[in-house]
């Protein structure tokens, strides 16, 4: 038991969740106070003591399933497995039909345990799992889903739904099918996981999963699901950042004494100034100019940066943004407070005039045009942030423009969404821009972006 717990904590820490020693002690104590055979209670107790942030919950749940699986981690029956591995005959097709039918029925009845039972059968018949085979769980999940024919299951499910008479609020069918698909996927996933754990042990499986928190996900290469997680994280994070910035601007200023108010209040203490009052310090907010490369390779990163900065735009006294591929266009006007940020971003991708010649990013030309058209945006109080991988496609870099911009502005920062080890390879010319920037940062994950904003801006 203790062994498993420590392994679990170790895995959490490896995924960047902070778990302190005293919290482990709390967890062990609380586990002693409940009936640990009740898995839900056990999960609650561990969750309440080990994980103190809702963003970590998903990761926690997944690791919990690995370390403390629901069913006994008995290895599945060997004979069944051998049958399914190579057998593509009528009989297996018959079984597949049967499993599909069960699954659809369970989905229609919203019967969790029946769904699980059907999935169990599917994994046994389709995954072709072999003991000790060094293959990741993803492979088995893929095999199972392919043979299960997810599309077909969902189609029958929707058909079944249409037959049922319901008074309830009817959701869009796409929502229903999305949800069903997601459910099947995650169930297959956890079933495969459970069997892998039985085979190889929790810690080994946890390592192959390589779980990451959303903020540690490489934005440029994120999967759709990861992007959704990131989106969810975005707004609360922007709000937190804004609070932090506001507090920093306040606390760094020396406050001056409000003499008038102090004397006025002193009257109630017979002229003794018992309480001192201070003027509220003036908040100095930075002016931001954001220039983003939105060419294919780094578009998703640019989106995130714009989104994050705009959600917290209240923290800046002024903010203008520009996007470019081979020509540059101002997009400040698309972000209006009454508009949804996502909609604004959609508008930008469709309406901004950023392609002049060939649609490959051209840093030199874009910088040059920026200087010609929008130089008034940059003043002594401006912090200029440039997002891009500095891959020039062998066009001239025009670092002289950046030099002149540096003289005009307060700071220039460059955020590069490429891993540091790729910098200056091929057509990346980040080092030619570097001397004119106050800082060049590798910025691949939301965590790095957050770090930059809270310290740099």
């Amino acid at each position: 038991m203790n062994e498993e717990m420590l392994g679990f904590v170790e895995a959490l820490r490896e995924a960047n969740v902070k778990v302190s020693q005293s919290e482990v002690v709390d967890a062990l104590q609380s586990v002693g106070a409940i009936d640990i055979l009740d898995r839900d209670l056990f999960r609650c107790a561990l969750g309440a003591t080990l994980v103190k942030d809702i963003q970590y919950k998903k990761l926690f749940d997944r690791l919990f399933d690995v370390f403390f699986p629901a069913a006994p981690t008995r290895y599945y029956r060997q004979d069944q497995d051998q049958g399914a591995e190579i057998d593509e005959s009528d009989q297996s097709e018959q079984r597949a039909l049967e499993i599909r039918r069960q699954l659809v029925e369970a989905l229609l009845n919203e019967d969790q345990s029946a769904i699980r039972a059907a999935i169990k059968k599917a994994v046994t018949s389709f995954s072709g799992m072999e003991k000790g085979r060094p293959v990741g769980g993803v492979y088995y999940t893929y095999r199972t889903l392919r043979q299960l024919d997810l599309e077909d299951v969902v189609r029958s499910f929707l058909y079944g739904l249409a037959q049922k008479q319901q008074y309830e609020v009817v959701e869009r069918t796409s929502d229903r099918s999305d949800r069903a698909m997601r459910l099947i996927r995650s169930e297959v996933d956890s079933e495969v996981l459970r069997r892998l754990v039985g085979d190889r042990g929790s810690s080994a499986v946890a390592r192959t999963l390589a779980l990451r928190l959303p903020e540690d996900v490489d934005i440029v290469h994120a999967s759709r699901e990861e992007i959704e997680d990131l989106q969810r994280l975005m707004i609360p994070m922007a709000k937190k950042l804004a609070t932090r910035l506001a507090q920093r601007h306040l606390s760094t200023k020396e406050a001056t004494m409000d003499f008038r108010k102090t004397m006025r209040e002193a009257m109630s203490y017979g002229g003794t100034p018992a309480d001192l009052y201070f003027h509220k310090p003036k908040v100095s907010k930075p002016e931001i100019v954001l220039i983003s490369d939105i060419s294919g390779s780094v578009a998703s990163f640019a989106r995130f940066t714009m989104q994050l900065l705009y959600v917290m735009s209240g923290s800046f006294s002024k903010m203008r943004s520009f996007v470019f591929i081979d020509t540059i266009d101002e997009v400040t006007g698309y972000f209006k407070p009454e508009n949804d940020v996502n909609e604004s971003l959609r508008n930008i991708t469709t309406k901004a005039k950023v392609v002049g010649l060939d649609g490959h990013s051209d840093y030199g030309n874009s910088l040059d045009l920026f200087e010609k058209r929008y130089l008034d945006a940059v003043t002594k109080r401006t912090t200029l942030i440039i997002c891009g991988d500095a891959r020039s496609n062998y066009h001239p870099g025009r670092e002289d423009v950046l030099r002149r911009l540096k003289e005009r502005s307060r700071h220039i920062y460059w955020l590069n969404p490429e891993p540091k080890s790729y910098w200056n390879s091929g057509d990346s010319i980040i080092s030619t821009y570097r001397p004119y920037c106050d800082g060049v940062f590798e910025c691949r994950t939301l965590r790095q972006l957050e770090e930059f904003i809270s310290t740099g801006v």
Partner: protein
Amino acid sequence: MRFDSISKVEELLKSQGYLPSKEIATVVYLAAILEKPVLIEGPAGTGKTELAKSVAHMVTMELIRLQCYEGLDEAKALYEWNYRKQLLRIQAKDADAKEQWNVLSEDIFSEEYLLERPLLRALRTPSQCVLLIDEVDRLEVEAEALLLEVLSDFQVSIPELGTVTSKQIPLVFLTSNGTRDLSEALKRRCLYLFLDYPDVDREREIIESKVSGLNDVLADQIAKYVSKLRDMDLKKRPSISESLDWAMSLVEMGVGTLDRDTTMATLNILLKYRSDIDSVKSVLESGRMVFD
């Protein structure tokens, strides 16, 4: 204070009209056993403060509440010396000039001149109490440190009086809307409970238990509909109390089942922003969210 079992906690909370999920009951149970504070996070209007109040009621303990805000300091949270009374005492001295300063100074820093604020009061009440520290995330980082000593050792040092140690360990609930990250030190000392919007079933139960004269179909529709709205991209998502308000109004209006027109007409009970109402209306009109 210890509870017999988790189901006992559930039962007690229910008797207060608070429908707990299993998780809530477990965390309350553990908090009482481990004598640890509970940090409750979650969106506004999911019953964070209500939970602390219900716990206080169900064990018939005094509820001491500290409402946090930006600029809250020791004087408002812990204790303060009563300047006015001290000044009066010093001035009264002049009449009887023989009194020594050292006697006097001891006198004016005694119990009599101490103004207890919520944290100190929670420590000094003779019988166990429930301490609710509401909206901790509004505190500045510096003020948060103030809570640490209280929450880990349940004691406080007052220079003039010495250390005040509590006779009993209060049940402490901290609530936060998550507008900023609380310090690791504070989180480490607490059990964590995230209160999200309830799922459809729990919401229906809540509505049914709080609103009388509601038929099953309508309760079900309301719960489903509200959860649907919460999935949308809104500025302010409807809270539990708002869905209760909605249910009550619908009952008052004599509505049997929801349809599109009634919903359109009563949206302003659920949503509090013009833009939210407009976007939901346009979805309703386009027929993408339909009633059978």
